[in-house]
């Protein structure tokens, strides 16, 4: 598998989260899912996108720990390595 950069993951995560409602320019690494109004079902969908695109399997427990967009990006990048 080709190396995945944090920038690539960030772009994909922001794009996916934006499809759930919030404006893309409102989404930063520090944004919390709570303030973006991203709920548990949204995170399940995000996990499925990540699995399809990067082959990284994120379970419900993994997602529960995530508070910010940056947390999600870091987790995905670390699992993809």
């Amino acid at each position, binding site marked *: 598998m080709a190396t995945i950069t944090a920038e690539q993951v960030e772009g994909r995560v922001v794009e996916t989260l934006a499809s759930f409602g919030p404006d893309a320019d409102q989404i930063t690494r520090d944004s919390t899912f709570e303030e973006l109004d991203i709920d548990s*079902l949204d995170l*399940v*969908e995000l996990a*499925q996108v990540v699995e399809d695109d990067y082959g990284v399997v994120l379970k419900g427990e993994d997602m529960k720990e995530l508070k910010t967009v940056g947390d999600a990006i870091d987790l995905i990048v670390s699992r993809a390595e």
Partner: protein
Amino acid sequence: MGVNYRTDRDGAESVVSEIERDGGEAIVLAADVADRDAPDTLFGALESHFDGPVLALVNNAGISRDDLTPSLGDEEWDAVLQTDLTAAFRLTRRALRPMLRARTGRIVNISSIAGLRANPGQANYAAAKAGLIALTKTSAVEVARRGVTVNAVAPGLIETEFIGGASKELLDAIPARRIGTPAEVAACVRFLTSDEASYVTGAVLTVDGGLAA
């Protein structure tokens, strides 16, 4: 449309022929839904054949191994739960992925009035069919905001090989005084999978001539 069978190849092929006669496109699939790999096998075959996501699922596979609870064996319990409940869960989980992405989808679980009221000799079957109703309601509320509906149909006595004949005593217990036809069940499934049923979710539609009323 994909029509899956485990034992009745002729039946599945005749359903496919009928769909094609009515202008639809369908293929026959052969998998035992109790197999852990069945969901990926079935959905993979359909997605590649039709070159797109599967947006409707009808969990219709069912077996029964009747016995009174004191003598009901572990094997009979496990086999029925596996096919009638666990398989439906696994297929639902697989089906929801593309449905959530597509923001639309229809899942219909074929339960039974045995899941709503007692039917001696069917503790395993009843538990599975009641479980299917709980699965229906829970998954329905989880995904409702994505435009995906999950409903159950609970048939009563229906003319199938599965049921066999009905005694006069049994017929007297049915307010409609007759057993139902597969077409009468299918009509309800067709409605629940249609665009018209877009606001119906988490519902259990009994099709039983009034038996469970």
